[in-house]
């Protein structure tokens, strides 16, 4: 089978036209690590970079000085050569609050911010984190303070939630239930009358029984307040979406060489193509390698068995077993990657081997950066 093209990371980082890099992929595969490693490498190659992380491992965050969630970029390092690395951790609630404050008059903003439904929505709506990551990206880009923005994406269950979240929130606010709640207030009673005919009384009764009268009232206040600022929301989401499609953006799909993660990666690649988002390539992270690849799993296991049956060289036998297991794993991982390559032959790929230790400081990130660039 033809080997896929190698993804040239340095070419992407060195291209001054690259303004945004988005790292996406299944949870736990190394998106945050890759994003941070790319940021450090780009800064060390002279670019002024900000990395927007969502959920860094605690020790990694500490080593980057991200001990506070303050929603603004902090300088992490200024390597020789004029580049700079900034990093920030997303505070989704704060980001949401800021949008409300920017789009509503103070009185209405206060009403929304103190509403229990807003508090629930802004801290636990399943797409809020994704949505706010995209919102923050838009803000960083508009500020034009950095020439490269690297975004890490939240560990969503649904791969491209960060693309779908704005639309979902929009659909929700356009939903029939919401319309029903806001209708009387909006159309000066006329539509309420129409709905009455459609059995609104029954509905209102059921809802009141299910939720209680106070809840309905809070909801109505919330929805009509939010509705008034939503036009602004939608416009911003639209702008960010276009930003993602622009030529200065590069998507990197990150995966581990395991079935679920590779499947998710395939899905990402397809979705990105559908949305006409520019895919740069696939990073296969945490690939296992053996220092003794010439000795196959089968030969190693056979030799171990031979020694065991003769009752000799116990330690060597155990080491051969260990090696056989390692070779089986590498074979399985290669197979997963081949599957992907045959389904997506044109996607450039780079591999990063599994380190024996977690990555929690700049040295570790630099090492990952080297592996990304010199595969």
């Amino acid at each position, binding site marked *: 089978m033809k080997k896929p093209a190698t993804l040239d990371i340095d070419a992407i980082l060195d291209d001054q036209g690259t303004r945004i890099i988005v790292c996406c992929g*299944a*949870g*736990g595969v190394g998106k945050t690590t890759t994003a941070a490693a790319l940021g450090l490498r780009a800064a060390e190659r002279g670019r002024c970079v900000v990395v927007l992380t969502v959920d860094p*491992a*605690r020790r990694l965050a500490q080593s980057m000085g991200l001990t506070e969630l303050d929603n603004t970029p902090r300088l992490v390092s200024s390597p020789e050569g004029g580049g700079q690395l900034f990093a920030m951790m997303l505070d989704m609630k704060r980001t949401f609050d800021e949008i409300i404050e920017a789009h509503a008059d103070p009185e209405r903003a206060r009403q929304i911010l103190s509403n*229990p*439904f807003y*508090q*629930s*929505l802004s801290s*636990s*709506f*399943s797409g809020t984190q994704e949505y706010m990551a995209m919102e923050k990206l838009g803000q960083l880009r508009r500020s034009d303070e950095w020439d490269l923005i690297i975004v890490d994406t939240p*560990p969503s269950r649904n791969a491209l939630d960060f693309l779908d979240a704005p639309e979902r*929130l929009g659909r*929700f606010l356009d*939903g*029939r*239930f*919401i319309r*029903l709640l806001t209708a009387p207030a909006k159309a000066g009673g006329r539509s309420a009358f129409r709905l009455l005919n459609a*059995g609104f009384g*029954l*509905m209102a*009764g*059921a*809802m009141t*029984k*299910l*939720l*209680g*009268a*106070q*809840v309905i009232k*809070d909801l109505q206040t919330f929805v009509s307040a939010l509705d008034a600022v939503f036009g602004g929301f939608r416009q911003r989401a639209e702008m960010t979406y276009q930003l993602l499609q622009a030529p200065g953006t590069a998507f990197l799909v990150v995966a581990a060489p395991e079935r*679920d993660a590779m499947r998710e990666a395939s899905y990402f690649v397809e979705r990105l193509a559908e949305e006409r988002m520019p895919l740069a390539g696939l990073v296969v992270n945490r690939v296992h390698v*053996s*220092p*003794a690849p*010439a*000795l196959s799993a089968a*030969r*190693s296991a056979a*030799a*171990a068995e031979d*020694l065991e049956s003769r009752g*000799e*060289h116990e*330690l*060597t036998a*155990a*080491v*051969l077993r*260990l*090696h056989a*297991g*390692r070779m089986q794993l590498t074979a399985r991982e290669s197979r997963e990657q081949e599957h992907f390559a045959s389904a997506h032959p044109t996607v450039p790929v780079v591999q990063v081997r599994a380190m*024996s*230790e*977690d990555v929690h400081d700049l040295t570790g990130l630099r090492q990952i950066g080297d592996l990304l660039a010199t595969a």
Partner: protein
Amino acid sequence: MDSPDTDWAGVRLHVVTGKGGTGKTTVAAALALALASGGRKVLLVEVEGRQGIAQIFDLPPLPYEERKIAVAPSGGDVFALSIDPEAAMLEYMEMFYGMRSAGRALTKMGIVDFATTVAPGFRDVLVTGKTTEAVRRRGRNGRRIYDAVVLDAPPTGRIARFLNVTQEVAGLAKVGPIKNHSELVNNVVKSPETAVHFVTLLEEMPVQETLDGIAELRAAGLPAGGIFVNMVRESLLPQAALDTAVKGRFDAGELVLGLKAAGVADGAEATAMAEALAEEVVEHAHRTELEKAERASLAEAGLKSYELPLLADGVDLAGLYELAESMRTQGAA
């Protein structure tokens, strides 16, 4: 029929949480089998509509209905239920208010969609409500229908919110039926009949998340159960060899002799191969050392802990029974 010799003898609701992808669904399924064995009746519940139970037991998608899906070792039945919040709401409206058609109409209006979006607390209370109802349910003879209920729960990051429904709903509904319903749930979830188990791997992030999750649970007054350390690799090498390898003093000389004896390689080739293998041993020893450190961190939580082997060929039905057996021998069920 309780077996007082197991670690969770009085527990009727087993909630299984953990970081994404660590094996919550797998462990919940195996635990259900383990608890059922010896003639008991166990309900396995899933709440995220992902049909993980059907997948793992190799069945067509489960409906919103309790049905028998497996027979446990030495008798005993595992039933399964995939809770769909929408169906749970219809059932709730009918049961408490006799309002089936109004419920249907609300569903059509997208109220469930709405609830999941803006107020997940509402959705959670429906789901946990259904689960705890199954825990409390009694037959005509006054005895509980299920000896135990196992819940394949949301991940660690959401578990405290998910279970702490009264708190979650309190801000939204200070009085009214939802509030009352949430109190019923609360009575079960915070009682000694409930245990929240954590699934983790011996890796830094899942362990950290587990410890944070346990702390959060305790702060919320929810009962932490046991820790299931999943996908544990058996150690093939003797401890002494690992110790020397970690110190960087592993001697490849012994391997050279062994490789020659096994006829794998000779001469310079044998030396080169032995050195490469020694490098592999050192790496393995380092990883084992890290795992030991993660075990030690977990031990600080002061919970019972169980280790489940990494199944080389992935999890199939036979693998599930193997995990269940392992749980039983360790006293988890």
